[in-house]
């Protein structure tokens, strides 16, 4: 087990920089999720930790050693691939034992380790099968088993669940988390799915275009996104953004006053701002709320999603209660003024 530290890590492909000086500290035993849209560099970063991509500049530490020039096999890491990368011509047991075989461990010893891992993952009955005889979820588990057998300092996961169907994904999410609690190892997990990130991580690293946008615990990211990108990326349905003007301790969109309790540290009168509010922070008010003109109603059973507009800007609300309404109706809604996120329109950074 070990900590992982990235120090000003850069990746340059033929003169184009794809990773721009990333600094991340991953503590021993922490579950860290790298999340971002495709092409943000999260997989490249993970592969640099693994040693599958060269590090153009900066340093990667695992434990107390700088591993930049070490080959993958010497870094004491294990990786679970999106495609699982199981060796098709080997049985489950051979797949799981391959790394120990490479290390030159004795056959009996390998057998014990493989069986131990198989027990953890409930794979004992499948040990003599070939990958092609397994279902997607079983293959996924074998891929994890192969990682466990190595007993590595750091586990790396590269979108391990994206080839599974939605239901299985939720189950495996729980299994990986349980595995982390059981083993207590450092785990670095890459995904493009913010729900996976929110539910699994101790710490989330949000990336975009090769930059780290924000690092923090899931709830910190949800409650205080540092910028417009993170605010929009975390949460589903996404945060509502309304562009307006800051004046007299509130935001004005057209002639309508939008309340803000958590006032900006510094904001000049008339500054152009983005007013952000999560759909779930809207509430139906009986009389004095803002007028939400309904366009679409989506009842999900547990909640009611309402898509509409206020002052000509699109707003989505998520309400606990069920109610009858039709497109064209006007609902009166209130925003919780303590849960408003204000961003500068120019810099897109949080200002309150």
């Amino acid at each position, binding site marked *: 087990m070990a900590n992982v530290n990235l120090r000003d890590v850069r990746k340059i492909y033929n003169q184009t920089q794809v990773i721009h000086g990333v600094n991340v500290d991953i503590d021993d035993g922490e579950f860290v999720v790298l999340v971002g849209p495709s092409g943000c560099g999260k997989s490249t970063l993970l592969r640099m930790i693994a040693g599958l991509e060269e590090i153009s500049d900066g340093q990667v530490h695992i434990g107390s050693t700088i591993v930049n020039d070490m080959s993958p*096999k010497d870094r004491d890491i294990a990786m679970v691939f999106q495609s699982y990368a199981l060796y098709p011509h080997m049985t489950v047991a051979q797949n799981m034992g391959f790394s120990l075989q490479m290390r030159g461990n004795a056959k009996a010893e390998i057998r014990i380790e493989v069986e131990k891992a198989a027990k953890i993952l409930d794979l004992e009955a499948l040990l003599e099968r070939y990958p092609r005889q397994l279902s997607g979820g079983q293959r996924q588990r074998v891929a994890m088993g192969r990682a466990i057998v190595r007993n590595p300092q750091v586990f790396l996961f590269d979108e391990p669940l994206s080839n599974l169907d939605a239901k299985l994904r939720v189950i495996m999410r729980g299994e990986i988390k349980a595995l982390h609690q059981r083993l207590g190892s450092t785990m670095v997990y890459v995904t493009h799915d913010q729900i996976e990130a929110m539910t699994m991580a101790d710490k989330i690293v949000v990336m975009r275009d090769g930059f780290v946008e924000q690092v923090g615990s899931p709830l910190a990211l949800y409650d205080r996104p540092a910028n417009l990108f993170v605010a929009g990326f975390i949460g589903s349905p996404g945060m509502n953004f309304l562009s307006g003007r800051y004046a007299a301790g509130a935001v004005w969109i057209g002639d309508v006053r939008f309340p803000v309790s958590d006032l900006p540290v510094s904001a000049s009168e008339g500054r152009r701002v983005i007013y952000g509010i999560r759909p779930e922070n809207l509430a139906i008010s009986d009389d004095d709320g803002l007028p939400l003109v309904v366009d679409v109603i989506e009842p999900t059973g547990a909640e009611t999603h309402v898509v509409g507009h206020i002052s000509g800007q699109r707003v989505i609300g998520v309400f606990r209660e069920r109610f009858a309404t039709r497109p064209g109706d006007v609902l009166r809604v209130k925003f919780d003024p303590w849960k408003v996120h204000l961003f500068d329109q120019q810099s897109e950074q949080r200002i309150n």
Partner: protein
Amino acid sequence: MSAIESHRTMSAPMQSTSKLGTRLKGVALHTAVFLLCLVWFTPVLSLFVTTFRSESDSSRTGWWHAFIEWRPVLSNYVEAMYLTGVGRSVVNSIVLTVPTVLGTVLFSAIGAFTLARMRFRGRIALFLAMVGFQVLPPQLVLVPMLKFFLALGLTGTFIPVWIIEMGLTVPFGIFLLYGFFASIPSDLVEAARIDGASEPRIFLQIILPLSGAVLASLAILQFMIAWNHLLIPLIFLGSGSLSPLTVQVASLAQTNAGGLNTLTAATFISVIVPLVLIVTLQKYFVRGVLGGAVKG
């Protein structure tokens, strides 16, 4: 398209081609295929039948008379094997072909693995050179190779033939295997690398076991090429005691020694191994031919 319109256009061809017309077309098709197969098989059949006919029968009547009066003799085979040196040539053909096939597969696999799975300067240029070399006329290599091996004193052994046959096919072999090796997911190789496998181990324990079918394809193609080649063994082994079947049969054909029926028996002996291979291992042969065709 409205429902009525689509109904009309759909039914139009059905009305124009009556049931009888369709059946006639079917008969014509099967007849054409049958005739094609018949025409293609007749020469093989004529050879096979002639090998069992006596010299006197063959000089008087065509081979098809064997179906009228069937008087098979085995003397042609006996004569071919023992009197004309075909028996020795069978051994020579094996000595020529088997190491050639092994070496070709080995060298092609290493070359294709390096070109397909390692990144280095000059990789593309080398691969394109291999594509170009496939088409080179083998006649080009004769003079320089003959001088080279004469200088080394290796003519009259199988070594020059092995080397030249390998050298002529390896560019094709690399091309054939390259496509397959490049299609092996890189995740698999990277997983092995993380698991601690070195490059030779990745090659031996991951790539090769996955490539059985394509290696077999290359092997069967090279077997047929080397087994059937005439020019190169003719030049480097001569038509003496080291001559393989092709050279032996060609010299029998040109000198007319032993007569026509012995020649047919010798010829049949020379084709039986590749014929059995192409029928039994057709799957691999087809795969090799298709994998090697430069796609448009």
